[in-house]
């Protein structure tokens, strides 16, 4: 369990809305993988779990990204997408970028 690692196919870290995020979590049979976004910044944190998948013996996963929100950062708030394994002693997390061009959107005013 201490060696849990989320491996995304093709070593991808950026995606477009609506794409599938596929990969494997080795050693995580029976645990759950969550796809979620959360905010960080000056105000209270927001978080939404978008999809979950129970991991089978081989640990493969496939989760479909929604159309929004996009990954973005401004001065007051950043929105971050991530995958996280839950239910075990450790909860590895892998951040990904989600936007039409696959990059984080930088906001000047917020």
């Amino acid at each position: 369990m201490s060696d849990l690692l989320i491996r995304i196919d093709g070593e991808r870290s950026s995606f477009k809305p609506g794409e599938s995020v596929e990969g494997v979590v080795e050693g995580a049979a029976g645990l759950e993988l969550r796809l979620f976004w959360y905010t960080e910044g000056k105000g209270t944190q927001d978080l939404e779990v978008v999809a979950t998948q129970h991991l089978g013996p081989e640990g493969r996963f496939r989760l479909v990204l929604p159309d929004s929100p996009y990954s973005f950062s401004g001065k007051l708030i950043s929105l971050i997408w991530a995958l996280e394994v839950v239910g075990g002693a450790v909860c590895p997390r892998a951040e990904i970028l989600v936007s039409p061009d696959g990059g984080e959107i930088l906001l000047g005013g917020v």
Partner: protein
Amino acid sequence: MRARDNPFRVERLHGLRPRIDVPLADLLARWESMGGRAALVGPHGTGKTTLIEALRVELGNPPLLRLSEERRRLPSELPAGTLLIDGAEQLDGRDWRKVVERPGRLLVTAHRPGLLPTLWESRSSETLLDALLEDLGAGAWRVQARPLLAAHGGNLREVFRALYDRWGEDGAKRAK
């Protein structure tokens, strides 16, 4: 200049541990010797919430009611056993009586003494501010932070909010 890179973002502040000069277990033992009913007392932004949340973990996560100016009423049913209340001074007299008449251990935070015997009195200081800045990896901000402590009446929460903005402004200047 991204919010996620700001050392003073809220998520980092929530990770700060209480800076008290006794082990949490000793503080809880003192609370037990007081009959399991006491208050953490201190002005705004001096660490009461941080401390009650840390004590809650030590106690095995009993219910914690978080009260504020916007949320001042008790739930219709109070939980049995140990109860923690952050912001107990928000309760009116009738609700406060319900709380104290309820059997079970009770630990609250309040801005002023008087609700219950004082278990711990929190206060801010430049020493505390320096220690918290080190915990945040932001010791270099000490010179800017100290005047803010006086300007905000010792409210560390407001100091960190001001430092959040200054970090962003510094980044904007560097980017130009």
